[in-house]
């Protein structure tokens, strides 16, 4: 048990985030933990697809070279890592990181922990047969409606297996679908020895995790209030939580970095993707965001306190991805004079050709970038002298052939449609597979006995 402050730093806010951030977090000042969140709702299905092609894949592959860069720093400074980079193949990911550690001669100094058991794809039919309908939380439809098209199914695990891995001496904990907030809660519960049913502490750690899980979005990135005065974004300081054993904490960033940590920057992140603020549900408990108190406690330091929570529920969320169909988006740019009028005329021509070809689409969506793409009709009519307008047409269909043909109908408009058109150098639009998200709930007793924690041999 620790009586001092514990520092948890955010290294990645999503798969594809700034690669320099984790390196600067471990070298730019004292931290105890580096947490790296890789998994968004549909990330698991992309990884599942990669794994089905090659059983050694199915995790965030760029995590491995990244770890190779920072493993010497982790060993030297004793910094621990929690990450859900393991995706649908946490074992392969953990073994790849161990290989890097071996190469660097650090395997015995940096034990790798592995958390698995969130993947319920192999058990899906058994669970359905037992009467778990896994209904879509939004539509109420039972999973049996799309069972044949399911690509991945993972239960959201909480902090418990991370705490166990840390207790067993792991310095790098690699997981599959552990919640974003669990990656921060695990270190705090491990360090402070908080009881798992101390709901206010669970809520406090959950809020801390929520604040840093999107990386620099809490420290000046994407900050609307006073955005012109946010300096140094070429070297954004990713957020760091300095947690105290009483459940309060400071949000800050390393000195000498850009961005800003202010009540405004933290508040914008708190409301990001918010539902009912009284009831922020995680596998570990429920946090009440209406109890959060924020206070500027110095330059780039915000104090967070007062957080209250409630007991966890009996259910775990399950993230299911299934194959939906195909889509493509084509764009062309029309120039002054009459840019908007030309773009609209081109859209009419395109739609008539698609209709005459007898192609079936579930949807055709037209947007005019520069006119209505982000605010729709709220933007009002465009300036008649607008210098250019991008025509952007998207289609979606269960028929791949229809979408493919659509992608061949964009470029011909250049020579066969309205004039003053350019911006087609990117070539034919790409046909994309649409993988859709199916959120459901399941009794946690069906999941928890299958969760496994191990520390790999050096």
């Amino acid at each position, binding site marked *: 048990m620790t009586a001092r402050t514990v520092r948890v730093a955010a290294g990645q806010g999503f798969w594809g985030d700034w690669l320099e951030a984790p390196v600067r977090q471990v070298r730019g000042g004292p931290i105890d933990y580096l947490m790296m969140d890789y998994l968004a709702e*549909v990330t698991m299905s992309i990884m599942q697809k990669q794994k089905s092609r090659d059983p050694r894949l199915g995790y965030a592959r760029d995590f491995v070279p990244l770890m190779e860069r920072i493993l010497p720093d982790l060993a030297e400074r004793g910094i621990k890592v929690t990450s859900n980079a393991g995706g649908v193949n946490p074992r392969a990911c953990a073994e790849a990181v161990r290989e890097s550690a071996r190469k660097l001669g650090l395997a015995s100094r940096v034990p790798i922990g592995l958390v698995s058991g969130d993947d319920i794809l192999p058990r899906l039919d058994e669970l359905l047969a037992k009467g778990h309908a896994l209904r879509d939380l939004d539509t109420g439809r039972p999973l049996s409606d799309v069972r044949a098209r399911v690509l991945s199914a993972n239960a959201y695990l909480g902090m418990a297996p991370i705490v166990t891995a840390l207790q067993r001496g792991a310095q790098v904990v690699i997981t599959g679908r552990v919640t974003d907030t669990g990656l921060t809660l695990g270190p705090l519960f491990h360090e402070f020895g908080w009881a798992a049913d101390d709901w206010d502490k669970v809520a406090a750690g959950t809020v801390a995790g929520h604040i840093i899980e999107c990386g620099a979005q809490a420290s000046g990135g994407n900050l609307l*209030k006073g955005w012109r005065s946010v300096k140094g974004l070429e070297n954004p300081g990713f957020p760091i939580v300095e947690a105290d054993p009483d459940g309060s904490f400071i949000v800050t960033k390393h000195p000498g970095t850009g961005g800003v940590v202010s009540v405004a920057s933290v508040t914008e992140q708190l*409301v*990001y993707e918010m539902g009912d603020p009284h009831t922020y549900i995680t596998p570990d408990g429920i946090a009440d965001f209406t109890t*959060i108190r924020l206070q500027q406690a110095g330059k780039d330091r915000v104090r967070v306190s*007062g957080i209250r929570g409630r007991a966890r529920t009996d259910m775990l969320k399950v993230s299911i991805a299934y194959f939906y169909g195909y889509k493509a988006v084509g764009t062309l740019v029309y120039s002054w004079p009459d840019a908007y009028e030309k773009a609209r005329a081109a859209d009419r021509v395109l739609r008539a050709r698609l209709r005459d070809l007898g192609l079936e689409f579930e949807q055709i969506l037209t*947007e005019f970038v520069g006119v209505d793409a*982000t605010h729709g009709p709220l933007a009002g009519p465009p300036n008649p002298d607008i210098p250019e307008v991008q025509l952007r047409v998207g289609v979606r269909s269960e028929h791949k052939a229809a979408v493919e043909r659509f992608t061949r109908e964009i470029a011909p408009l250049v020579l066969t449609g309205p004039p003053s058109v350019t911006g087609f150098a990117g070539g034919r639009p790409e046909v994309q597979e649409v993988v*859709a998200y199916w959120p459901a709930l399941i009794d946690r007793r069906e999941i928890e006995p299958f969760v496994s924690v191990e520390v790999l041999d050096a």
Partner: protein
Amino acid sequence: MPDSRRVGAARSPRRLIQLRYLAHARSGDKGDTANVGLIALKPEFYPLLAKEVTVARVRRHFKGMVRGVERFELPNLQALNFLLHGALDGGGTISLKTDAQGKVYSTALLRMEIPVPAALARRVRRA
């Protein structure tokens, strides 16, 4: 500049101003629902937001763009949270929209006008 038509009785003159002068905002998504967290630029603006940025007004503002609106109050953060259901044309990976994840729905709400005391309208627009 926002429309500044006079509204209300002459005794306490009020003017319509856009929310951008009173609040900042961030939005995100959950399936086909966009959320917009609307945060007072100054703590003293929060009661005005709580009173004037009603579910009915927001529904009217987004008419034809969303299916339903829910509102939650966070006086501790001087913020309101709006859930805009059916705002994302299917949402997630299904949506064909540029803003499929509702990242900038926040700014669309900031276009909305609410009536405020004329003196306040003058002050915030000068700032």
